């Protein structure tokens, strides 16, 4: 990066407006997800605010090419990589920016997928579903809130921590305490799923032998089907067709 990139100011040499712009653009990091470069275009798009600091075409070309290289991670935690790479570019160390991207993509992807998709989204979903089954019309808002409070906090934190501490700042989401949080959230989701199951069995006309038997048999069948790697959509379609068959039986 040219010397224009070494302007001083803010966290990691990034001004507040630049950090905010990178944060907002990070929401589009998967806008052009593709098999060849994965999140490359989205990552480069998020890094564009710093292009304005460059003063010659060769520097712009090098900058764009660096950040159009293959990149893939969890979008919610991508801000740690964006912050670290942007701070390195701002301090005039492009090699360090590339190293930060390469070092963080995999670990952040594993940690983020595990927390956001494997734990937080199911927890938010069972909270929303249980409220909906209880007849609360605001259940969708609860789902969005349960997911997005930590989601948005992690994005905002990622930019600041990544810019201030570089790749090592990501340790806060890669260490053992973070794993314990993931385990606890997953356990909370499972607890909620059990509660939803109880709501289904005890709802409506109350607990009947037929409902318990049908629910139990379905549960065992679905576990077996999932172990055989049958897709959930196919299993769901089977359930819906079974429901239609029950209706036909009841109607006759």
């Amino acid at each position, binding site marked *: 990066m040219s010397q224009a990139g070494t302007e001083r100011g803010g966290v990691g040499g990034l001004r507040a407006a630049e950090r905010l712009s990178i944060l907002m653009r990070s929401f589009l990091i998967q806008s052009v997800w*593709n098999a060849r470069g994965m999140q490359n275009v989205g990552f480069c798009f998020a890094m*564009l605010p710093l292009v304005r600091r460059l003063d010659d075409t060769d520097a712009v070309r090098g900058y764009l090419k660096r950040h159009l290289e293959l990149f893939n991670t969890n979008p919610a935690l991508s801000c740690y990589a964006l912050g670290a790479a942007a701070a390195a570019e701002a301090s005039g160390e492009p090699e360090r920016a590339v190293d930060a991207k390469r070092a963080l993509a995999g670990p952040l992807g594993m940690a983020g997928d595990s927390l956001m998709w494997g734990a937080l989204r199911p927890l938010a979903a069972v909270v929303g579903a249980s409220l909906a089954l209880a007849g609360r019309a605001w259940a969708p808002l609860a789902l969005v809130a349960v997911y997005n409070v930590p989601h948005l906090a992690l994005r905002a934190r990622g930019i600041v921590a990544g810019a201030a501490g570089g790749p090592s700042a990501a340790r806060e989401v890669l260490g053992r305490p973070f794993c314990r949080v993931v385990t606890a959230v997953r356990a909370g989701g499972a607890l909620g799923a*059990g509660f939803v199951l109880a709501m*289904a069995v*005890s709802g409506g006309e109350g607990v009947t032998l037929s409902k318990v038997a049908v629910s139990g048999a379905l549960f065992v069948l679905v576990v077996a089907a999932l172990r055989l790697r049958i897709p959930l959509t196919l299993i769901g379609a089977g359930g819906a067709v079974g429901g239609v068959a029950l209706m036909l039986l009841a109607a006759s």
Partner: protein
Amino acid sequence: MSDAVAIAVLALIAGGLSLDTTAAFQVMVSQPLVAGAIAGLALGDVATGLVVGTTLQLVWLGVLPVGAAHFPDAAVGTVVGVGVAGLLSRGAGGGGGWPIAFGILAALGVGAVGQRVVLALRRVNVRFSDLARSRAEASDASGVAKAVVLGLALRFFCGAALAAAGLVILLPILRAVPLGGGSDVFPTALWAAPIAAAAFAARPRAGLERACLAAGFAVGMLVLRGW
């Protein structure tokens, strides 16, 4: 609201919500429960939107839109499902189990088609990525922004077109199905909840989760049955 206007509105909603699945934001408005409520609100039938959305939320609980994974297009599928259920129930003279059952089946089918659409889009996106790269060679940063706009526009268009096509094709077919006497017994949550619970229990290395699942079920039964 006529069918044509309803389909147009639902298509626009599906296009917008499909962006949230992976392309933009990912703030979970594309989740079936939220998408169902939004589509239901647009149709003036939030209750149907919530029933269809909750059921699909439970069915697709274990689906993870991670990295290069293949996953059903839940947002578009849900909007079509709510559209089918809501518009069918108008014709049938009031809600009931049949429109909801057909709506859920339509959602699962369209979701599966949407999965193929997403895979095709990701191949097209390679061209947008190439466009950004070629512009970068000329030191032109606007190519990156242009690729992002094209990627988002194509995703929106595909989501809207899939929803419109799904509703236009499925509604006349399902309206032609002769339904018997009104039946309200479609046991939605009865089969969707075991699927959701099984999705947790069947996870690899899920010892603690299985225990929590059992505990949640036991506590739920005790609380809901009044101890």
